[in-house]
């Protein structure tokens, strides 16, 4: 065994050990873990769920954070007097294609993985996500950084993202995909495009994107070929010419006219409208942008949902929310506000050891091998291990979702949609 392998093995072992032990420590939280939104306790609870596949039994808070706003001030109404249904009978599946045409796609839980590119994250983490998506019979997204050969075996569960830089987008990557996701904006940094700093553009990343090594890469903030909804329609028509079977997802941030964007996307052929709020994003998104541009997603969801209802097309399009969905309770709240389901990315990173240290943009900043492309660090995540952790996390979330629904007497997660009346706001 060479010295590199030894180093990797040593670190991997310690990371695994730490993830097991940390949630059980009796001396209070480790210093410097998390922040107000992703509290230390929430992170530890996520580690715990990723380890066991069960909801934490040791008293760790696993439902909400402590940000003083957003989902953290929304709670569940009392369900006293409601006839409970059997948790095992609760159906968590949602449909990703509600149009009368094209391939019917259902996922057994109202969650799929968000786009994180090869380059922004390590290949091993990407494979782990893809394997988990296959196991869970849901999806993950390539993000904008190309389609590594190693995830081709999972292609029936991988969404190809077409984003403004179109890095690594080729006809075959569009043809692999059951769903193509147009990324117009990212909630964490709307209007700023994408950026991958020079540090992380290693030779592998540069090769995948066909760019120069160690030069920062920017994706423009708009598609230069799309400046209107009719351009977008044409853009969709193009992708559908390349892959007529693909479902279309349109990912946008939450501007004040997001309802108009949603209806426009529907008429331009979208199966999924994906609204991405500002609480998400890795440490690579600029602090000044996060949470500070566009509308909070908890306002955007009902705005879009209700507008689609009033226009009479709500049952023909799937509304997906994302951007800071940390827990099963967040998922349920987003659905109660009007979404069909959620896209999750950061929580998956936490499942494999993210501590929210915020060093994601640096080449060797991530000490647990998630947001790095460094040949050494990126080996810290074994894909099989990562797969197990992510699957466990979502199994635990599913249990929690079943509990919430059962208590309100709802037999299906589809019945929760738009039930704002089940939410209360804490003062």
């Amino acid at each position: 065994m060479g010295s590199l392998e030894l180093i990797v093995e040593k670190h991997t072992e310690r990371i695994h050990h730490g993830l097991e032990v940390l949630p059980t420590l009796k001396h209070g939280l480790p210093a410097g873990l998390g922040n107000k939104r992703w509290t230390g306790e929430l992170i530890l609870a996520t580690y715990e769920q990723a380890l066991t596949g069960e909801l934490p039994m040791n008293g760790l808070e696993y439902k909400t954070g402590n940000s003083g706003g957003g989902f953290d001030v929304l709670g569940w109404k009392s369900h006293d007097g409601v006839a409970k249904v059997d948790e095992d009978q609760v159906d968590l599946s949602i449909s990703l294609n509600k149009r009368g045409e094209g391939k019917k796609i259902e996922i057994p839980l109202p969650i799929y993985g968000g786009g994180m590119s090869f380059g922004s994250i390590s290949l091993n983490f990407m494979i782990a996500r893809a394997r988990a998506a296959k196991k869970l019979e849901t999806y993950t997204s390539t993000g904008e950084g190309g389609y590594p050969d190693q995830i081709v075996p999972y292609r029936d569960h991988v969404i190809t993202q077409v984003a403004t830089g179109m890095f690594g987008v080729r006809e075959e990557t569009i043809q692999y995909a059951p769903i193509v996701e147009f990324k117009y904006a990212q909630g964490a940094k709307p209007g700023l495009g994408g950026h991958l700093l020079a540090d992380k553009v290693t030779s592998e990343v540069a090769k995948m994107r066909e760019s120069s090594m160690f030069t920062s890469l920017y994706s423009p903030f708009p598609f230069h070929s799309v400046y209107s909804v009719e351009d977008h329609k044409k853009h969709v028509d193009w992708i559908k010419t390349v892959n007529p079977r693909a479902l279309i997802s349109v990912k946008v941030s939450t501007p004040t006219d997001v309802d108009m964007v949603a209806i426009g996307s529907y008429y331009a052929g979208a199966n999924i409208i994906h609204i991405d709020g500002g609480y998400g994003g890795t440490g690579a998104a600029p602090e000044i942008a996060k949470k500070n541009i566009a509308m909070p997603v908890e306002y955007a969801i009902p705005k879009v949902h209700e507008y689609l209802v009033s226009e009479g097309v709500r049952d023909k399009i799937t509304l997906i929310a994302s951007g800071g969905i940390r827990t099963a309770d967040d998922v349920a709240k987003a659905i109660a506000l009007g979404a069909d389901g959620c896209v999750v990315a950061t929580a998956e990173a936490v499942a494999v050891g993210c501590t929210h240290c915020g060093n994601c943009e640096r080449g060797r900043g991530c000490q647990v091998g998630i947001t790095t492309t460094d040949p050494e660090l990126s080996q810290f995540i074994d894909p099989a291990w990562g797969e197990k952790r992510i699957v466990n996390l979502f199994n635990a979330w599913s249990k929690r979702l079943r509990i919430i629904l059962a208590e309100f007497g709802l037999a299906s997660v589809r019945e929760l949609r738009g039930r704002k009346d089940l939410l209360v706001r804490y003062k």
Partner: protein
Amino acid sequence: MDLQASESSGVGRTYSCDTSEIALTGQSIIDSRKRLPTPDSPFVKQGAEGGCGVVGLACNIPLEGKYLLQSLVQMRNRGNGKGGGIAALGLVPEQLGVTEKILREDYILQVAYLDQSSRKQVEDERIRPFFLVDHESKVEAVDDYRSISGLEVEPPEVYRYFVRVKAEVLDDFAKKCNLSSMKRNELEDEFVYQNSYLLDHQYYSSLGEKKAFVVSHGKNLIVLKLVGYGDDVVKYYRLEDFKAHVWIGHHRYPTKGRVWHPGGAHPFVGLHEALVHNGDFANYHSIVEYLAQRNIHPLFLTDTEVSVLLFDLVSRIYKYPLEYLIEALAPTTERDFEMLPEQKKEIYGLIQTSHIHGSPDGPWFFIVARNDVEKNAWQLLGITDTSMLRPQVFALQEGPVKIGIIASERQAINAVLGRLQEDGRIPSRFADSYWNARGGSHTDGGAFLFTVRDGDHGKELECADKFGRAITLPEQDWLHGPRTDLALNVSVALQMPRKGSQAQDPLGFYEYVRPALRDAGFQYAGEILEELKRLALKGQESRRFAIQSLSLLFDRIYDTGYKKRSSLLQLYHEALNEVFSSVPVSNYDVYTRLDWRNRSRLAHPGLESQVLVVDALEFPVDGDESAARFVVDAHNQGWENILLYNLRGHRFIGSGLGPRTNSLKIDCYGDVGDYVASGIDGCELTIHGAAQDQAGQILKFGKLVVHGDVGQAFMYAAKGGDVYVLGNAAGRPLINAVGRPRVVINGTCLDYLAESFMAGDPYNGGGFVVVNGLKPSFDGRFIEQEYPYPGGNLFSLASGGAIFIRDPHRKVSSDQLNGGRLADFTLKDWELIRPYLEENAKVFGISVEKDLLTVDRRLLDPSQAYRKIEPISLQELA
């Protein structure tokens, strides 16, 4: 500051009057509107709206509405059937049942009654008391709207009143509004305007249930609109044979779902102008506030309405000449501003200071039809925004009639011309000239105006840019029709190559006939074509020879003498189509043909190197059964040579073929639509003509040859490919390209060429772009354009690759760059690009020595002719 326009020529030339008087009356008009009621919430847009499909035409003779139809049908994807409209300007009195005098002097008030029962009340309250009605009628429409397929909402009944304001009413109005010093005709204009506002306010905007609204009220101008497509308007209101000198057709794409009446559809009117719009504003709120400060309030709450209100304010109240009006809407900025002459800088600076808050921000393109009543001139104006974010193409053709066209797509222009040509009204389905405007620029100002006015021989059509510089065509002959079948001239037949070297060599044949094509007449060209058509029927090899020879005649640039190239193109186009159509459907020929009706007969090719000829005419332009998908199916069946003809805006040709298509060849004849050659990976695609917007997106590998211009966002995020473009690229080519694209553009580009270019090390397998800055002259030479690259942001923030620009006069300056660097052009660079220039010579006949390196009859060293722009390491990228 005296706002008098330059006396030079063109747009603003006749403007001259005391500006202080204008300011005074302008202010009184604005003050007079204070007493008008205001709407509840003008700051909330009724619905977002995206791009649209637009076409406008102006002609020195009145043309029937049917000529818009095909063009609008071919752009249906740009609308969604929830709003269509037309404007017609410069009408024919007989067809309206009025005298010429009435048509010239009366306002044509057209009211749409959404609620039929409101008509009497509207007439009694807002029409009869104030107007002398010289003529009135219900606008003719088909009996049952459902007979027009796809029309789901019954269009409103429209009544047309030819009116003048009663003298006493006008006196009273002048007194009440303190406008007594105003000219009588201007006073009357304002009365009509305010009366329509009151009508709309009372019967439209203030009501939950809308009852009626004014569709148009200008002189010699009508607007009609409905919930549907623009072409539905022509059909529903029976305008196929209705004649006008100026037409606009429009499809709207409102994003709101339920639309039950056409109040929001374009065109909107100011007074004597109708405006359609493609795009949307980011600053609707700010513009509404700007207008509110001038007592102007939108009632229909769309971007388009505020656009025309702005237009009317600046033109009718402030009386700006067109040049300044355009500047107020689309300001000249950045380097372009610096490039203006000092006097213009001063005036434009003042205009911008006063109007920037009312200047629409965002992607937009306006087409305006305007009656300049005083001069009895009818105008068609196209203005693009400063950033050129919406597609636009202009065209001009001169023949027995002179016609100018503006549209979202070139294929839409050709569709209008095609219909006119088929009816024998014009000699060719090709314009003499096509061009794009460069928004907010010092070169053309981003706007062009076609004006129909009285001349020495009836009506004349003129074309000028924002600065009033005339766009002219050389005086050449066009093809006179109708043509009779030509008897084969024996001498020509003898000259035709039979067997031997030339028979196998179309290029040799082309070079042989080329000198004669300059000096001889259309008759000679016709005879050559007859002979080629005959050859095409003789055998398989001679058919190949005929097709290749005809393609060369069609594609190449050469001196056509006194004959218009557009007329020759028409002849070649017809000959090619005839040859293609004569290809048998049988599968046992080197060439085999399929069309929409026979598409199910698609099978494996029977012979190696067999060519599949596809008549694209009836294939859908997009979707699962489109021509593009048919090409994919054919390739999957094993076809390696596919030739498409009769393309009419078919989109996505070349897409969907998947990876590694190295031995596939595709040839496109006709008008290809957007996104041609996008994603190709290995194949060779040749476009015999121009490409449109979004050509070559993510192009991976292979060869693309375009015998014409390409549109906007060319080769966006391309990964590779060897690409040759005969003409210009519009805005934003090669943005975010990576890998190894190697591109020769023989014309130029408008702006943002190769922004964020990341194509590695050009000497080491990376990519580059060569810009030659040439254009074909009317006598068939390649001459230098005024600027090899006129815009800004050249190679901005690029981190790889290089630009090689032919710039012997050193006109490109570093202030056009943004993060790149002008560097010495070395021998190494020449060795790098030379093979591509030689291939360029082969495909277009642009000689490296004679056309590229010779300047002022002097052979230059490549380092004198070319310059290099290379990336520099930027802190932003480190």
